[in-house]
């Protein structure tokens, strides 16, 4: 009973995570300039990974294993935000203009 509840919760979290990854990819392809694409890189994918980690963590059955996966998420969070900052600063300095609505 409990294990099937855990399974359902796990499936919900992982599916929600996969949805955010999909949205991130759609943003990567549809958004008009490098800055808007960076929005989808930092937010959609990190939320997606966070949800996948939660879904897997409640499956793992060990607190330490769950914490280790959360640690992996934190590493990605830090490097994702830093990468977005560095890439957007370089793009601004490189003279890539901000896309504006017509």
């Amino acid at each position, binding site marked *: 009973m409990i294990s099937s509840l855990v*399974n359902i919760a*796990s*499936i919900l979290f*992982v*599916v929600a*995570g*996969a949805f955010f*990854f*999909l949205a*991130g*990819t759609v943003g*990567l*392809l549809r958004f008009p300039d*490098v800055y808007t*694409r*960076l929005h989808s*890189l930092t937010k959609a*994918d*990190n939320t*997606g*990974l966070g949800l*996948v*980690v939660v879904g*897997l963590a409640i*499956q*793992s059955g060990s607190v330490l*294993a769950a914490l*280790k*996966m959360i*640690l*992996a*998420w934190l*590493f*990605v969070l*830090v*490097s*994702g935000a*830093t*990468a*977005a900052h*560095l*890439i*957007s*600063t*370089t*793009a601004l*300095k*490189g*003279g*890539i203009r901000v896309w504006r609505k017509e």
Partner: protein
Amino acid sequence: MNTFFTIVAGFLLVNIAAGLVRVYRGPSPADRMLSAQLFGTTGVAILLLLSQSLSTPALVDAALVLGLLAAVAVVAFVTRIPQNERDE
């Protein structure tokens, strides 16, 4: 349950494949770099899913290393690739 995780892993791999269109189109070097960074994040998620579905805890270590080193290439990109100063 393991089949479900494998399916999601496959779905995320398709996401990477679709994202390659952005690498192909660019147009700026920054666009290509950010796509590669995105694939790294997706790769971490796939490795975590595979670690569960294949019951291989060591793959969590691989995901950890991938996450830890994901930004190294970005640091190399911003410090080594010259950016064109375009006219405003």
